[in-house]
């Protein structure tokens, strides 16, 4: 038999768990937790202000936003797109070309071009998405990869627009941003990028959250589970998939634009980077495909690992090997991703705890209220303990 905590006063842990079970408290904890996270995110660069850390933080936020955008399409519909570097690159080139043509000076102004760059990327996604989404499963994946190679070739070959492999450079961010705040130059330089990246991430996350809780999101999940049945039930699968695809391209395009401004220059192999395709997919898979927090968690784990390992490993070959090995480990050992696995563990742990409490409640029903018994019943039955 199980250990029965009969007659023993509930421990502090039990009390906390019982408190967390309360629904109102649950939402309070959730909102509070999110607020704390937001404050941490806002304050992070103020506390750790050395440029190396903020550099990594900016990239982590950018990748988190890109992975969240990617997840809106691939996570919800189950179509794994491996060509989102196209929209990253289009966003990068869009901001560079716009800044060049309109003579935008360095400073805050280029950030105003970021949404426009996102829209241009989204406009590119319409025809590409339309063609790719005529097919399914593998063929879809392969066509997204093909679009990536087409665009990379274009970036090399359309010399009058993209300047070929010589690349384009963006206006230099002005270095006196910190003057008004009496901060040393280097500590302030990354801050605008950090907050813009955070804003894009929040926008992407808000959109993903809204979609996840809307009827539209439900339709996307239905497409993931069984597209033909969803079509039969009246879900307009074609336009719905395309809208999700274009939305995800919009966010990835904005990320590309900020990334380009952050780096200061763009070249075809870095704007259209095959590793970017795999990176955001890996972040999604690692954190948990189709969850809201998964891609962000994946980015927060992966980007610092990437950045620091390129610093440590002098040989880029080792970096590729480590990356591939990590990818294999995640897919073979954690196929569902971190967030769903943790959720499962938490549910299991809770179920095992409620079983312990259940036996005394069965003996003396006056212990605990109605809700406790209801909560205890579910997992107990599932485990077959009570039957």
């Amino acid at each position, binding site marked *: 038999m199980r250990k029965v905590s009969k007659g023993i006063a509930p421990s502090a842990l039990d009390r906390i768990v019982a408190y967390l079970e309360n629904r109102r408290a649950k939402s309070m904890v959730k909102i509070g937790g999110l607020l704390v996270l937001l404050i941490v995110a806002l304050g992070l660069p103020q506390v750790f202000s050395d440029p190396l850390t903020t550099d990594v933080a900016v990239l982590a936020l950018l990748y988190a936003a890109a992975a969240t955008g990617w997840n809106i399409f691939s996570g919800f519909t189950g179509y794994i797109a491996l060509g989102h570097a196209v929209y990253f690159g289009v966003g990068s080139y869009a901001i560079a070309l716009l800044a060049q043509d309109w003579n935008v000076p360095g400073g805050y102004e280029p950030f105003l071009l970021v949404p426009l760059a996102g829209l241009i990327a989204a406009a590119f996604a319409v025809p590409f998405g339309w063609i790719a989404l005529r097919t399914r499963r593998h063929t879809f994946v*392969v066509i997204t990869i*093909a679009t990536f190679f087409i665009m990379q070739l274009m970036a090399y070959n359309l010399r009058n627009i993209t300047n070929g492999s010589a690349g384009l450079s963006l206006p230099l961010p002005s270095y006196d941003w910190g003057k008004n705040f009496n901060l040393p130059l280097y500590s302030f330089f990354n801050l605008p990028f950090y907050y813009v990246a955070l804003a894009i991430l929040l926008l992407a996350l808000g959109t993903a959250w809204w979609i996840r809780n809307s009827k539209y999101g439900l339709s996307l999940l239905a497409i993931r589970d069984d597209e033909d049945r969803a079509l039969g039930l009246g879900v307009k699968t074609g336009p719905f998939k395309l809208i999700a695809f274009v939305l995800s391209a919009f966010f990835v395009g904005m990320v590309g634009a900020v990334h380009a401004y952050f780096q200061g220059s763009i070249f075809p192999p870095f704007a259209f980077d095959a590793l970017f395709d*795999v990176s955001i997919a890996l972040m999604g898979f690692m954190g948990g495909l189709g969850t809201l927090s998964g891609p962000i968690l994946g980015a927060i784990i992966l980007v610092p690992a990437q950045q620091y390992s390129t610093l440590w490993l002098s040989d880029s070959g*080792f970096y590729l090997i480590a*990356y*591939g090995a990590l990818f294999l480990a995640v*897919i073979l050992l954690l196929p569902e991703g971190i967030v769903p696995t943790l959720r499962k563990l938490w549910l299991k742990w809770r179920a095992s705890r409620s079983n312990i409490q259940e036996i005394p409640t069965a003996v003396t029903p006056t212990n605990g209220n109605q809700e406790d018994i209801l909560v205890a019943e579910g997992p107990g039955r599932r485990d077959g303990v009570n039957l």
Partner: protein
Amino acid sequence: MAEVRLILNEVITGILTGGIYALMASGLTLIFGVMDIINIGQGALVILGGYLSYILQENFHIDLFLGLLLTMPLMFLLGLFIEWAFIRPLKRDRTMLSILVTFAIALIIEGTLGLKNTFGTDNIKLHAWYVDSSNASFQIGGFVLPYINIFVFVLSSALLTGLYFLVYRTKFGYSLRASMQNRTAAELIGVDVERVSAITFGIGVALAAAGGMAFGTTTAFNPGSHYDLISRLLVIIILGGMGSLRGALVASVVMLVIEDVTSVVWTPVWATTVFFALLVIILLVRPQGLFGRLEGRKQ
């Protein structure tokens, strides 16, 4: 007139070198047909095959074509291992996950070959008397035909004929085609689908080894070349129709001919783009490719 002759010469070269891509693409499409997975690592495996031939030739002075007798079985075993270690454990959502797994394998191969202690990232090229001596080509009716192109064409023809007999004339071939048509039904009538899958993967990788040797004689390559290769191979198998051997052959030749002709009449810069554009146009009309079947509902 000279123009026409030049174009005709390029068409012939395209057909001859198309055999190289046919080798690599038939492995890819075979694996897809039987196992329902796309081996994104095929490009990297081709490059690995090229490096193996390079090692044999540089260190042991073994002829490139003879070396295949060693590298192909070796790569076959490597294919068996990859299938056993990384593809078979995928139970859930195999189709999508296998693409990522094979991509990861490609990265590991690229990284290993590109280490400073192994080969580094410089271009290498395979050499032999029939590749780079001054009289390594002969002229027939005014057309210049390099020996290597002919040898490679003979090699691809031989291997593809062998593959044809294996698939259509042997008991293993029956099992293979049964697994292609319906995995579950094949299992029910007693085909060991897992064994067939493993061997198919091995054959696909062994073909990549041969393709790598052939590729290395015509093109300089480095560990990063696999991106370019896999993009072409993917386009070939989509154009031909996923899982269709015939489609892979036709599409390989079509692609090479179009590229060669474009680079002569227009410019080499746009040669690949023309082919990609053709792919997009064809997909608009026939999403399933030239010889493919439409993807129906899979249970």
